[in-house]
């Protein structure tokens, strides 16, 4: 069944401009600007304390921004909460369910708040919780609690879901099950904004990654545009090789560095030619290049470059 949309599909899922949020004298969000496209998966990536949860909670209408504009599906969550609540699914980072409530009952209750919800038993089944339908929330494992929260976020068939650290504390199998749901949501036209501090999660799932640090966006774009098309050649060898000599032999625009000691990284147009030049040079120097590999930069590398710090 199609339902007439109150707001045109043109407005982005989320558009934040110059957002500021302070808690007392701490500035949690410091002039943050980002947008999340309709029907896309947007991953907000950053270390703990970067302002991810504050940002998401402002979008969800739980908090008010001190400055800046917030638009969710084209609406202001502070002023249009009533219109937005049915259209936005929310998965909190933790809690939100009465400890004594049984999993199946809680999901059925949330489903009753919606006009055309998914079938609660079918959703429980999909998330592997059927055997725990009668288990009180407090007796579910951490992963089961997370999955129940995810189920409650999507049961109302929302336009947009906010998932705050959806896979934190999950075992690999449960993480993949969660990713599968996110991919399915995307395939069926649901917009997703998720926060994470797992690079692989952002790289694998997201159409767009927004890297935030200290309350502000340090970079955003598709995972590919952030990591770049460029590949790297890495190898280990004895420390102190004369890289200037190597650079002379490489095509112009290539870079070579030793970091840390004994670990070499060559960047540039990494093709068969470059590979051949490097190995020939190694042979001439009489060194064996160990762990020689050609790989793409990871978001971890990007984050490190942008902030000078490790993500975790």
């Amino acid at each position, binding site marked *: 069944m199609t*339902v007439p949309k109150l707001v045109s599909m043109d407005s982005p899922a989320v558009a934040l401009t110059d957002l500021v949020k302070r808690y007392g004298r701490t500035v949690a969000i410091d002039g943050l600007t980002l947008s999340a496209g309709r029907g896309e998966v947007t991953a907000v990536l950053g270390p703990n304390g970067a302002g991810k949860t504050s940002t998401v909670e402002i979008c969800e209408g739980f908090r008010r921004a001190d400055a800046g504009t917030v638009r969710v599906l084209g609406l202001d969550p502070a002023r249009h909460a009533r219109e937005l609540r049915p259209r936005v699914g929310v998965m909190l980072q933790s809690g*939100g369910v*009465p400890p*004594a409530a049984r999993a199946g009952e809680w999901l059925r209750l949330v489903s009753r708040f919606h006009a055309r919800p*998914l079938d609660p038993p079918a959703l429980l089944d*999909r998330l592997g919780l059927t055997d725990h339908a009668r288990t009180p929330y407090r007796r579910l494992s951490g992963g089961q609690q997370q999955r129940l929260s995810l189920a409650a976020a999507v049961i109302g*068939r929302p336009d947009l879901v906010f998932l705050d650290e959806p896979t934190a504390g999950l075992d690999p199998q449960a993480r993949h099950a969660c990713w599968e749901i996110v991919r399915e949501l995307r395939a069926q036209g649901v917009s997703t904004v998720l926060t994470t501090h797992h690079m692989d999660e952002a790289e694998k799932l997201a159409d767009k990654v927004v890297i935030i640090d200290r309350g502000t966006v340090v970079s955003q774009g598709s995972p590919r545009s952030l990591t770049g098309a460029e590949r790297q050649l890495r190898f280990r060898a004895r420390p102190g090789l004369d890289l200037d000599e190597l650079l002379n032999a490489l095509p112009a625009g290539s870079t070579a560095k030793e970091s840390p000691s004994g670990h070499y990284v060559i960047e540039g147009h990494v093709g068969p030619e470059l590979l051949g030049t490097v190995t020939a040079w190694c042979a001439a120097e009489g060194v064996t290049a160990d762990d020689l590999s050609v790989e793409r930069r990871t978001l971890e590398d990007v984050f490190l470059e942008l902030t000078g710090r490790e993500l975790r």
Partner: protein
Amino acid sequence: MTAALDFTPSPGAAPLPRMVLAQAGAEVRSVLRNGEQLLLTLIIPILVLVGFSAVPLLEVPGRRVDFVAPGVLALAIMSTAFTGQAIGTGFERRYGVLKRLGATPLSRTGLMLAKTLAVIAVEVLQIAVIAAVALGMGWRPQGNPLWAALLVLAGTAAFSGLALLMAGTLRAEATLAAANLVYLVLLGLGGVVVPLTSFPHGLRTVVELLPITALTGGLREVLAHGSGLPVRDLLVLLAWAALTLGLASRVFRWE
């Protein structure tokens, strides 16, 4: 994993009555399932009713059960609308349940309606059980049941306001302790089983302004003496309701 689900967006809020009934049903279930809550809402009032009606522990005017039953009804109302609701809501706030519900189509007004409905449903159950036990012990209620119902509703509003004021401002553990303490103090002071005539005059003037005293006194006027509407008691309850609900709506913190 099993069959694919249709996640295609089709958002919409359910009609308000359906949301409110669903939430009220969940709240009633959680009360009836909770052992401590049942102790508070049913078992203690019935023990007080049976104990004080059967055993001449205190000198009371008139027939013992006719004096005690209205007091126990008031106690039951207080235990559900005030103590149970304060503790329940306090922990809902602490566990982020109020926050999470705030992200569903159920509005805060809807949630408050559901809580009111759930409290009234539990009270109806309490009144039925307590009345049955009291009638079995020879209780002969007088007066107009409508006046009694009006007092019960006003009392419920006053106690709910007090409960939400506490649950919305204090930490959950503090609410738990304070709600139980207030319950015990009001049980002792409010004329539930101890007649106000046994208090010194000064204390009595103060005590008469408490919501539990007004509810107990008003119910006793109607049910034991067959009086008309006890206007003074009703006004005391309505004043408490206006004060506490007004204050709670300003200071209540949802998380």
